[in-house]
């Protein structure tokens, strides 16, 4: 029974397209996150939501828009994809904010 699940696991798309990555957690956590792991393997926070409310928005292009329809879901929508968006995107949740997080398996996005 997966705690944090994200779909799809792999996503290959062309430049300029719009795509979404979905994330769901069944842990009852109030806080959810999106992280990006770039080619240098750094894990960087993109967004953090607490009780469906955005609390952290790092320096991320506004082509990236998170959406939290409820506490258990935090989806990531990306408009006008660029080559530099290619990375692995991880969803995570924790309770409370800043404590040990549970991560999804990642979505490898490749923009061609």
């Amino acid at each position, binding site marked *: 029974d997966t705690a*944090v699940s994200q779909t799809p696991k792999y996503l290959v798309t062309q430049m300029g397209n719009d795509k979404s990555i979905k994330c769901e957690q069944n842990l009852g956590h109030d806080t959810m996150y999106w*992280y990006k792991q770039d080619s*240098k*393997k*750094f*894990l*960087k*926070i993109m967004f*953090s939501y607490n009780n469906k409310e955005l*609390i*952290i928005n790092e320096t991320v292009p506004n082509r990236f828009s998170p959406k939290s329809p409820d506490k258990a879901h935090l989806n990531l929508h990306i408009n006008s994809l660029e080559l530099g968006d290619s990375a692995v995107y*991880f969803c*995570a949740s924790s309770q409370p*904010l*800043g*404590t*040990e*997080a*549970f*991560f*999804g*398996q*990642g979505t490898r996005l490749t923009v061609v």
Partner: protein
Amino acid sequence: DQQVKQNSPSLSVQEGRISILNCDYTNSMFDYFLWYKKYPAEGPTFLISISSIKDKNEDGRFTVFLNKSAKHLSLHIVPSQPGDSAVYFCAASGSVGNTGGFKTIFGAGTRLFVKA
């Protein structure tokens, strides 16, 4: 501006010996520190954590040491096992955002190889 640094990209250790992974941080506002383990094609999994009010936390073969004055923490794995081979991320949490927001910042990771 890397606030959490893991200066060793990789570490190789013989099975049964001790593995020591190091992490340095620059911001004294961090007050909670975590270690995560990551296997290929999987998300990071939480391993062990320590609050800034402690200097040591132990969980089975894993011990985390915190030296606040040096802004340094380390993860000791003893005895090391081949299944411990993975990437280990150090992370630090605190109110360190530009607007004082609470966030967790990860280091770049250290790849541990445990040889049988």
